[in-house]
């Protein structure tokens, strides 16, 4: 199975550019180790032993480069594996390689990668989403059945939505951030990506859980999401109260996306769910609050890339000062979006501006958490479209940062509040035949109800469509050949 996937990658990756690094030898060795253990009569290390996986290039791997999509870390070999990496290996998962991403996870299209964009398997002229476009494209392109992403403002869910795959942002603190190169420490969260809800649940249980090496990781049992997904697969949502977020509709939303969302609401109702409209009035401020908090945290986190201990160093001619070398290196090593966010963060945190910008954004964050808490008194889960549009064209939004930021409109509130949220395919848009995602959100640590609803929805949607939507993705080997 590993060899079949490596062959597939070799055929389609030149067009897709989902992978930055493919570890043929390591993957084959890991797969062989699983086979040998099974032949020797040892029980499998996990239900996912031997299953291949694509890992977003933001997690450290001691035996593979980790670039975060950035020139400043080009060729960097970390001295340690991330906890998530170690858990995957311990479970017998076969890591095929590292996937492309927007630089340091900043972006919604994977166009900010220093190594070129990844393309959407549904239409190679379109974006696969971001920042985790390499992971989502590897799934939709059938290069791997499983992938790992990270989600700070929607970077797992939005790519899942535009590629017709499943992507989950666990509760903040649910998955260890040790070895996850930090972008925005109070928002970043690693999570599972797959083509089905059950596969995502299986991967979730492998990677989640308390880690003493991450002081923000939650010391609580991993939610039983596999059981929840199986229960959901029975297709009965009677007694479940589903809230539609009133604010996530209207201007800026593509008609085909809204139509698909309305169909989804109808299907959920058909399964017995009670549909309730809820208003979360402060969600309107989530995008501006995020584009203050995340850049502020990133300006601090990215200060470590200073050309002193690792990574790129430029301009060290024996005369230039350390400060000059740092500035020249960071100028050459970071792309435009990263520089923009560092400068916004520097501005928002500087004296005289701190209270009006960063301080105020933190208060908005409290109000958003309160909106969620009030909503979850009335409903069990909240739903919305995952993102306002289908996959846009490569090059369409790179010149307009604000237009790019709008892709995160629906996903950001869950990051700010630390809740669990996922995207599950809801259909193909009537406008353009491209995938649309349904976002399901649950309170912190209540992943089970989110997986249950998503699994039930997936089943009834597949039945309504006459099969899984992902089977309709164009044949890449025909497109490539």
């Amino acid at each position, binding site marked *: 199975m590993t060899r079949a996937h490596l062959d597939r990658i070799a055929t389609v990756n030149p067009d897709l550019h989902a992978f930055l690094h493919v570890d043929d030898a390591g993957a084959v060795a890991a797969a062989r180790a699983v086979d040998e253990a099974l032949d020797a009569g040892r029980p499998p290390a996990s239900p996912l032993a031997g299953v291949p996986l694509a890992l977003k290039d933001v997690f450290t791997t001691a035996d593979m480069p980790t670039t975060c999509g950035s020139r400043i870390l080009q060729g*960097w*070999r*970390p*001295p*340690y594996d991330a906890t998530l990496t170690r858990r995957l290996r311990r479970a017998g998962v076969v890591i095929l390689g590292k996937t492309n991403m927007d630089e340091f996870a900043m972006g919604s299209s994977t166009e900010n990668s220093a190594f070129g964009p990844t393309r959407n398997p549904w239409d190679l002229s379109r974006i696969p989403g971001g920042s985790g476009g390499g992971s989502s494209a590897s799934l939709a392109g059938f290069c791997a059945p499983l992938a790992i992403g990270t989600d700070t403002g929607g970077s797992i869910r939005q790519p899942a939505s535009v590629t017709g795959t499943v992507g989950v942002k666990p509760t*903040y*603190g649910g998955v260890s951030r040790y070895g996850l190169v930090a972008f925005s420490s*109070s928002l970043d969260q690693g999570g599972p990506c797959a083509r089905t809800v059950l596969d995502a649940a299986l991967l979730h249980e492998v990677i989640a859980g308390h880690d*003493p090496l991450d*002081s*923000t990781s*939650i010391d609580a049992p991993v939610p039983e999401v596999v059981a929840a997904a199986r229960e959901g697969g029975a297709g009965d949502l009677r007694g479940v109260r589903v809230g539609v977020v009133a604010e996530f509709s209207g201007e800026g939303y593509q008609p085909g996306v809204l139509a698909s969302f309305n169909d989804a609401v109808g299907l959920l109702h058909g399964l017995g769910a009670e549909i309730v409209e809820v208003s979360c009035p*402060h969600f309107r*401020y989530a995008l*501006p*609050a995020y*584009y*203050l908090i995340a850049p502020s945290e990133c300006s601090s986190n990215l200060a470590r890339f200073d050309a002193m*201990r*690792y990574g*790129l*160093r430029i301009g*060290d001619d*024996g005369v230039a*000062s*350390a*400060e*000059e070398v*740092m*500035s020249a290196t*960071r*100028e050459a090593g*970071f792309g*435009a979006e990263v*520089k*923009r966010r*560092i*400068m*916004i963060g*520097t*501005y*928002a945190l*500087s004296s005289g501006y701190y209270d*009006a*910008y960063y*301080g*105020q*954004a*933190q*208060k*908005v*964050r*409290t*109000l958003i*958490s309160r909106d969620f808490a009030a909503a979850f008194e009335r409903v069990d889960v909240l739903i919305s479209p995952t993102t306002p549009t289908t996959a846009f064209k490569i090059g369409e939004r790179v010149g307009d*940062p*604000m237009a790019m930021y709008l892709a995160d409109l629906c996903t950001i509130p869950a990051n*700010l*509040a630390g809740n669990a949220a996922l995207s599950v395919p809801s259909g193909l848009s009537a406008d353009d035949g491209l995938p649309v995602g349904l976002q399901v959100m649950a309170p*912190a640590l209540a992943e089970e109800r989110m997986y249950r609803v998503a699994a039930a929805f997936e089943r009834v949607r597949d039945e309504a469509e006459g099969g899984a939507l992902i089977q309709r993705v164009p044949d890449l080997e025909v497109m490539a050949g």
Partner: protein
Amino acid sequence: MITRDEVAHLARLARLAVNEKELDMFADQLDVILQSVARVGEVAAQDIPPTSHAVPLTNVFRDDVVHDGLDQRAALAAAPDVVDGRFRVPRILGEPQ
């Protein structure tokens, strides 16, 4: 309205040697972005406590037991320049002699 000079100041603070063309581009873009994010000021929030950590934890400690860290070789393995088992860095003080 953020000025070109303010952007140049931010770049210096952030140790980014942005060039003249970038300064113009960033000044325009940052102006649009900052005006948009300033909307957080519309929310009446005087009595609202700020959130720095959405899923709060308290007193996350570990036992005071010595663990090994990275060994010297591993720590230096990705260094741009190594001399005598240390990171060699450009001068941090004074003018070149």
